[in-house]
């Protein structure tokens, strides 16, 4: 069953839908194969090919919920029907083809074709379609009452199956220029579509905490174009690519009629000046259209003394077309590797990244109060008879994403014995945010020093061992300054409508909040034992210790032990077993901050 345009209906089956979805692709494949065979008929050399065709019928049925057991497969009864698989390859003279096609359902099919002519033209085309079954939250926990305060929910599409059909077409073409050895031009195209519905929830405040759910139509299209060239000359290899992406959500956003924010205790419409979404039918869950342009240039050089040099530069511009906002990112990378000294492999890397994200002027809707002490006024420009502290709520949102990131590091690998290697590495990363402070003093910079030491060895036949240790020390990690726990202070009398305001209480918070550690250590070990031809064991252990001791009040520590084991046993050529087990125990000590929503 499916739900569309207000009606439930059975999935359309039969020849008509099959032809619409799959026939054009079969025609394309047949044309390509026919074209190739026609060209082969021209001279005497016999083509070499193999072909396999499977046709059949499948019957499926399900019981209870299908959303998990068939999350990415169509396993309900309506999926029963014919299926087909075609695969093969062919080669004659300088033409090579490899193709495959699978049909299971008019929303579940895939296929592709690869071709190569004289190593001059290489083409890889593929397409696929499948369905993703999503969860439907019935919100049964959103139901309660304490005094006059009520929490309730309303699902306007109760029982509806939320399904997204995802389809993708990709084409990659490479032309190796025969008149310029080492040069190729390449083109790529990709189109992804997502169609269906997902759940979209929103909330009306104050009258009650009224959570509502609607089906959000999904009709997304992402189109990617990429073109570039590669040129090899002397010791250099140069690559340039241009990438363009367009993303559009054509599905209509849902609307919701927001409740009138009436005081639950019967005091009337005294919240009107403090609630933006109230007593109106408004759209929500908007998805902007986006576009992205990216230029990538790479240079690789094989230098003397076993040295390799690599450099790249990437510039990208991403634009939110609906809000007219842009993000520019520039990234420059250099890496040098050297194996001149016997037993040593040395490498150094440097990266500089600059992200510039537009600021946004947020124009807060300021409704006028219709009842109570502030009737006829907005919250900001309030009744002069009231003396509560207010401020202009409109503000400029400066982006925390805008930053400069500098990374410098080196790695060294030394061959201690014939099958034993020592690896040592160090890296320093500095993140300097342009508009966001991570400390009370206004520091915008975070610095992380990472050291790692590991050893790989084969101590005896059939045994492979790796041991590693990593330590990362961070100054001023990403942090929400004064994000929780208000300090003791004396509130002004007058209540919420003429006394201390919620923003004043928020300003008294003293605890910084961060999920980023100031110190992180990891010990890891892997062992693979494959002494017997038909039996192997792989064991792994990781210990992770993280802590943050730079917050005020909310310091935390977390330790994880993660052992795992995997066993593969093939007692006979026709029988094989694989068993694996993973255990994870994580202990976190932290200040638990429980937000209480009261009005």
């Amino acid at each position, binding site marked *: 069953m499916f739900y569309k345009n207000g009606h439930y209906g059975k999935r359309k089956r039969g020849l008509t839908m099959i032809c619409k979805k799959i026939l054009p692709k079969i025609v394309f494949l047949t044309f390509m194969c026919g074209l190739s065979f026609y060209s082969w008929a021209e001279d005497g050399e016999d083509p070499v090919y193999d072909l*396999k065709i499977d046709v*059949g*019928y*499948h019957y499926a*049925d*399900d*019981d209870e919920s299908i959303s998990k*057991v068939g999350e990415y497969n169509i396993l309900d009864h309506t999926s029963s029907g014919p299926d087909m698989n075609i695969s093969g390859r062919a080669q004659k003279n300088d033409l090579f083809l490899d193709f495959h096609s699978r049909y299971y359902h008019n929303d579940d099919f895939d296929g592709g074709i690869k071709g190569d002519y004289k190593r001059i033209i290489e083409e890889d085309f593929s397409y696929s379609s499948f369905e993703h079954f999503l969860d439907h939250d019935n919100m049964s926990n959103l139901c309660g009452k304490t005094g006059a305060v009520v929490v309730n929910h309303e699902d306007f599409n109760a029982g509806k199956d939320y399904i997204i059909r995802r389809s993708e077409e990709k084409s990659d073409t490479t032309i190796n220029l025969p008149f310029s050895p080492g040069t190729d031009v390449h083109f790529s195209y990709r189109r992804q579509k997502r169609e269906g519905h997902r759940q979209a929830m929103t909330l009306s405040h104050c009258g009650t905490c009224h959570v509502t759910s609607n089906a959000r139509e999904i009709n997304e299209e992402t189109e990617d174009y990429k073109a570039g060239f590669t040129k090899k000359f002397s010791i250099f290899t140069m690559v340039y690519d241009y990438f363009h992406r367009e993303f559009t959500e054509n599905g209509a956003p849902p609307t919701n009629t927001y409740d009138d924010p009436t005081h639950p205790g019967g005091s009337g419409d005294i919240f009107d000046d403090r609630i933006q979404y109230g007593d109106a039918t408004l759209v929500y869950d908007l998805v902007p259209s986006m576009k992205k342009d990216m230029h990538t240039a790479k240079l690789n050089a094989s230098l003397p003394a076993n040295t390799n040099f690599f450099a790249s530069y990437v510039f990208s511009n991403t634009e939110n077309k609906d809000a007219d906002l842009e993000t520019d990112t520039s990234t420059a990378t250099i890496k040098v590797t050297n194996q001149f000294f016997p037993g040593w492999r040395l490498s150094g890397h440097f990266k500089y990244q600059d992200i510039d994200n537009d600021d946004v002027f947020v124009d807060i809707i300021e409704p006028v109060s219709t009842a109570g002490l502030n009737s006829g006024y907005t919250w900001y420009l309030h009744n002069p008879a009231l003396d509560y502290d207010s401020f202009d709520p409109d503000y400029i949102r400066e982006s925390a994403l805008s930053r400069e990131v500098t990374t410098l590091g080196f790695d060294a690998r030394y061959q201690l014995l014939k099958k034993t290697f020592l690896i040592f590495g160090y890296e320093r990363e500095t993140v300097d945010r342009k508009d966001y402070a991570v400390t009370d003093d206004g520091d915008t910079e975070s610095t992380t020093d990472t050291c790692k030491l590991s050893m790989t060895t084969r101590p005896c036949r059939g045994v492979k061992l790796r041991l590693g240790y990593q330590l990362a020390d961070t100054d001023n990690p990403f942090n929400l300054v004064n994000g929780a726990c208000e300090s003791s202070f004396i509130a002004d009398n007058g209540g919420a409508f003429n006394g201390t305001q919620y923003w004043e209480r928020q300003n008294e918070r003293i605890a910084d909040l961060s999920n980023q550690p100031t110190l992180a250590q990891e010990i890891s070990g892997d062992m693979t034992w494959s002494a017997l031809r038909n039996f192997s064991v792989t064991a792994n252990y990781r210990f992770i210790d993280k802590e943050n001791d730079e917050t005020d009040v909310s310091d935390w520590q977390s330790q994880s032990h993660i052992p795992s084991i995997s066993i593969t046993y093939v007692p006979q050529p*026709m029988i094989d077993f694989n068993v694996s087990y993973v255990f994870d125990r994580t202990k976190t000590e932290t200040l638990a901050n429980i937000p*209480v929503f009261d009005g």
Partner: protein
Amino acid sequence: MGVINYRPLEKLNLTLSGSYTASDGGMDALSDYSTLCSQLADMVSYSYDLHTVHTYSDLDITQKELALQAAYHLDDNFTLGAGISYLRYDDGEPYLYDGSGDAYYVSIGMSYTP
């Protein structure tokens, strides 16, 4: 997870495969519930019961898959095929709603290789 291939006859090939996945997880109870609840009651005059909060994220999922495939070679070009698959998802600690369910899939077909 295991796969067994068996050829009882020269022209008949049977494949039996199965997998079993179990995922189990949970949180220890938070410390000092009584003090926490009484503090909240003093602050906002509401009575909160947080004693079962740590159970909301409990995880007890098992997934089973079993499949039997048969292929009978009629001659060098044609093969008859049949198969049946069974899948089961069990949620032993459902929260809000139970995603448990099963599905089976039966197929018959013919394969041609020139």
